């Protein structure tokens, strides 16, 4: 590795978000959970889709959801009867730290499928470090 690449690596390690990103990914890997992000504009039916999905999966998969939006608690209440664990993040666009704190409150070994429901503004890089994350810019 060249000196400059090394230097860049060291610098990026100092950014707290990267630490959260790495830990989130490590958790996903360690517990072998399938992680699925449900994204789309408001009113697209993400919560209803999740409800229908979780209802069907009951008994065949332990499902957990992290709901992300300014009224996340309301959505969390709505879906709580269909899944094992629910966490709400009250923000429009989650960053890796918010997901990190949600993961820390969950019993990770008890998750087969982790859904995250978020508005379109969810960016891959903020969650796990992928540089080609999803955006939701209108064209």
């Amino acid at each position, binding site marked *: 590795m060249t000196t400059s690449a090394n230097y860049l690596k060291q610098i990026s390690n100092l950014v707290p978000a990267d630490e959260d990103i790495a830990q989130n*990914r490590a958790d*996903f*890997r360690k517990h*072998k*959970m*399938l*992680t*699925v*992000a*449900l*994204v*789309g*504009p408001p*009113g*697209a*039916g*993400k919560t*209803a*889709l999740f*409800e*229908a*999905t979780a*209802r*069907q*999966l009951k*008994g*065949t*998969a332990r499902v957990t959801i992290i709901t992300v939006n300014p009224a996340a608690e309301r959505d969390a209440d709505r879906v709580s009867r269909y899944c094992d664990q629910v966490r709400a993040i009250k923000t429009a666009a989650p960053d890796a730290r918010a997901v990190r704190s949600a993961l820390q409150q969950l019993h990770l070994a008890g998750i*087969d*499928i982790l859904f*995250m429901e978020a508005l*379109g503004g969810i960016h*891959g890089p903020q*969650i*796990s*470090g*992928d540089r*080609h*994350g*999803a*955006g*939701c*810019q*209108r*064209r």
Partner: protein
Amino acid sequence: MAPRFRATVTVLAVSGGDDKAAEYVDLLTASQVLILSKAELQRHVIFNRGAFRGNVHRINPLAELFEVSAFENSGLTRWLAWLDRQRKDKDPTYKPATPPAALAEWFFG
């Protein structure tokens, strides 16, 4: 590079209009699945299904497109089968169990 969320699923509703896929190009490009939700509304609103599907295919030819009605609890079979495949890919020891309701839908439509 380890995966982020393994799958990104974009949800767009019939009520959003048949041009929605073309509006959210970046999102659709980054998705493996597009779910057209509120599918039952196609009977009640003007929605050019061909145009919508054409846009999806043009923007992301690899994306799977599932039409689902959570209200009528229909169209879920293929989506659930897709989830099942992802679980199997993730963990080869996983033994898929066919959800009873999905099986019923398969038989009875």
